[in-house]
């Protein structure tokens, strides 16, 4: 039974036993000048609920990532429970592009597998598809907690497990990962430019000034940015607690995220102080511009900066490497 995701992704279908020989043949067909090298394995896991369009978009992002960080891409597409016993289905692709910096051709390779219920045999099969001795990074997209549970043991061999809190929800991050420090939230990674811009701005103010009389910290978010909002709120809470510690102040503020979409279905944040002072950050113009206002600052007029959330390949690299 053809899997709609595997069906939608580019490549040529092969028997499971022919995957690796087919890959070698595809490389041979590309000619000797195609640079074949990897620095890691990237395993992109799709849950059964992921649509073909969504899978295609994530596949394109993974390829863009692989063009920048050469890696072997292994795509695992879960079948719905009702099809759990269907046969495994595989596809192989080698995509080449011109790399101006090397003045030559570079190629990325992708191995795709549609699978039913995860079993030790499936895990063994996947292990044979990975580049030996190189790190394994997992990107779980649209994967439910139940779909991921059987893979938990396997993740002890992975350098990173990356997922987007806005998509997979908080429960995913509460799973009993054998190595919790390896788990990264793409929504948090995506907000790095915001933390950088706000951090640089707020670092010009004394820690005591930032926490004195602080009553509330609120991050408002649009429907698709719940993870980003949660990540920013936690970051603000951590930094402000640190500020309070340094200045020996008591931090009595309330911290909350609210699903009240600011204009443009975006993100914004507001801190309110007991004396009426206010710090606010608006992410305007579809997230390409930040307006920062802090009435306690020497310059209380709004400061406008160009701050965009990280694009998908950049956020993925941030999550994988840092």
């Amino acid at each position, binding site marked *: 039974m053809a899997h709609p995701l595997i069906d939608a992704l580019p490549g040529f279908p092969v028997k499971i036993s022919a995957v690796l020989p087919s890959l070698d043949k595809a490389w041979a067909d590309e000619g000797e000048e195609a*640079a074949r*090298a*990897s*620095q890691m394995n990237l395993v992109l896991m799709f849950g059964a609920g992921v649509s073909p369009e969504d899978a295609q978009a994530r596949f394109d992002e993974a390829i863009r990532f692989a*063009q*920048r*960080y*050469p890696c072997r891409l292994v795509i695992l597409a879960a079948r719905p429970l009702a099809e759990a016993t269907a046969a495994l289905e595989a596809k192989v692709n080698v995509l080449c592009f011109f*790399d*101006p*910096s*090397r003045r030559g051709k*570079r190629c990325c390779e992708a191995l795709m597998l549609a699978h039913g219920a995860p079993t030790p045999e499936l895990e063994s099969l996947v292990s044979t598809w990975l580049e030996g001795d190189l790190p394994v990074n997992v990107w779980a997209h649209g994967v439910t907690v139940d779909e991921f549970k059987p893979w938990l043991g396997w993740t002890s061999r992975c350098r990173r497990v990356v997922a987007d809190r806005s998509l997979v929800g908080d429960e995913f991050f509460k799973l009993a990962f054998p190595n919790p420090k390896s788990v990264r939230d793409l929504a948090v990674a995506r907000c*790095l*430019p915001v*933390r*950088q*811009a*706000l*951090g*640089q*701005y*707020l*670092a*010009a103010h004394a*820690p005591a000034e*930032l926490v004195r009389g602080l009553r509330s910290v609120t991050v408002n978010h649009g429907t698709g940015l719940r993870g980003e909002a949660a990540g920013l709120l936690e*970051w603000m809470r*951590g*930094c*402000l607690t*640190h*500020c309070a510690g*340094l200045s020996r102040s008591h931090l009595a503020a309330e911290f909350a995220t609210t699903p009240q979409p600011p204009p443009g279905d975006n993100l914004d944040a507001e801190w309110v102080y007991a004396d009426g002072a206010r710090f606010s950050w608006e992410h305007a113009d579809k997230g390409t511009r930040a307006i920062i206002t802090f009435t306690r*600052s*020497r*310059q209380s*007029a709004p*400061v406008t*900066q*160009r*701050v965009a959330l990280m694009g998908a390949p950049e956020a993925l690299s941030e999550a994988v490497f*840092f």
Partner: protein
Amino acid sequence: MSDTDRHPFLSGLSKHRGAQPTCVVIFGASGDLAARKLLPALYNLAVDSLLPADFHLIGFGRKPIPDAEFRTQAAADLKKFSRREFRPDIWKRIEDNTTYQAGGYDDPAAFAALKEQIAAAEKRAGRSLQLVFYVSTPPSVFEPILENLGQSGLAGRGVGTDLESKVIIEKPFGKDLASAVHLNAVAARNFRESQIFRIDHYLGKETVQDLLVLRFANPILEPLWNRRHVDHVQITVAEELGVGTRGGYYDGSGATRDMLQNHTMQLLALVAMEQPRSLSAEHIRDEKVKLLESIQPLRVGANGDAVRAQYVEGLSGGEKVPSYLTEKDIPKDSATETFCALRFSVENSRWSGVPFYMRSGKRLARRVSEIAIQFKQPESGLFAGDARYDLAPNRLVIQIQPDEGTTLVLNSKVPGLEPRTQPVRLSFRYATTYGSNTPEAYERLILDGIVGDRTLFIRGDETEASWRLFTPLLQSWQQQGQEGMETYAAGSWGPAGGDALLAAHGHAWRNAGR
């Protein structure tokens, strides 16, 4: 600054993302280095969102240039020299805060005007800015720039705080020991050592930074990295081009000052130094200085440790090219060497008896910078002394440019029934494994300067330790004039004397192709 010392709102960010609001002042802003390297580096940092949100740029030069013209020229330079495509939206973020100040480097009034420009930038920003002065002028004006920065009060701004002024000084840092000591004294009169960043762009290259990782993160190498196992070390910094339009500058410098005294000695120090106590700038630089101080003085004269030569007419890239003495701006009786080869002895327990050879020159067979560590070959053993076995000494080659990477030469059995062996290469190439991802050395170094990380910059005592080794040699050559100067054909690997320097110890240059 450790992460715990940073402001809480920066402590979770990498140091490179936590740059203070900054104003960079480039002295020599209309020069070649600014156009080719410095402006593209700043632009590429902006592309990667690594410049602080409050970033201001002031070009300073003798030539009067209106602000708008400076900005237009800068954009044209970026289109020509940036490694990444020019994006007007990114450039606009820099351009909006870019101005130009004309004036003499020895004119206090020009520095007063610069101070006003900085004050205006701070007014626009609504906050104090860290000042980073980049001195990319000819060395003859280093001193007045440093003095004027001191006297104007710009050097002393924010000392001891996060906004401490910094000065990045281009090479050459002196032309001999006395001038380096003097320049260090001038710098020290106006800046603290913590504010001074002596740049050697080789240290910003990924492969050079990787030397520390290669040596100290791969424990299998450490037991081999000594006189017991290493036969000798070769460092080559070869250029295919001649002096081109830089004849006037080059003839006052020569291969030894231009390349060996700085870049190549840094490579030697990193290859041979002991493991630093930590990755802190001071611990690494302490070990480099210790190593430089354990190098024995060069023996000058016939059968000594140094060979110099000039190129004569020859073939480069299949084309006939002229001799050095007929190049533009070169005096017919010039005694400047375009090639230099040296043999160093490092007297410490790790390296005693292991020759370190280095060479650099113009118009050599090809452009390559590499470090080759050749291991000893046992005289006895299962395969030794049998002509059927083609055994090469094991060799680890770290290629710095072009094609950055590392190669290890091992011996392998040739497939077949007959027992034959042949050397093979295990090869790692940065570009293949890491893709098109490598920032230019200047990007890394300028950003390090902005965030105050001195690890990849040279400390004052390092420059002096290096000049202490080279000055007697250069003085001797100056006294000899043309006497003893060898020649080599352009497009060759150098003079016969360069080969003889190694042959005297039973060694030979690698002279490797790609």
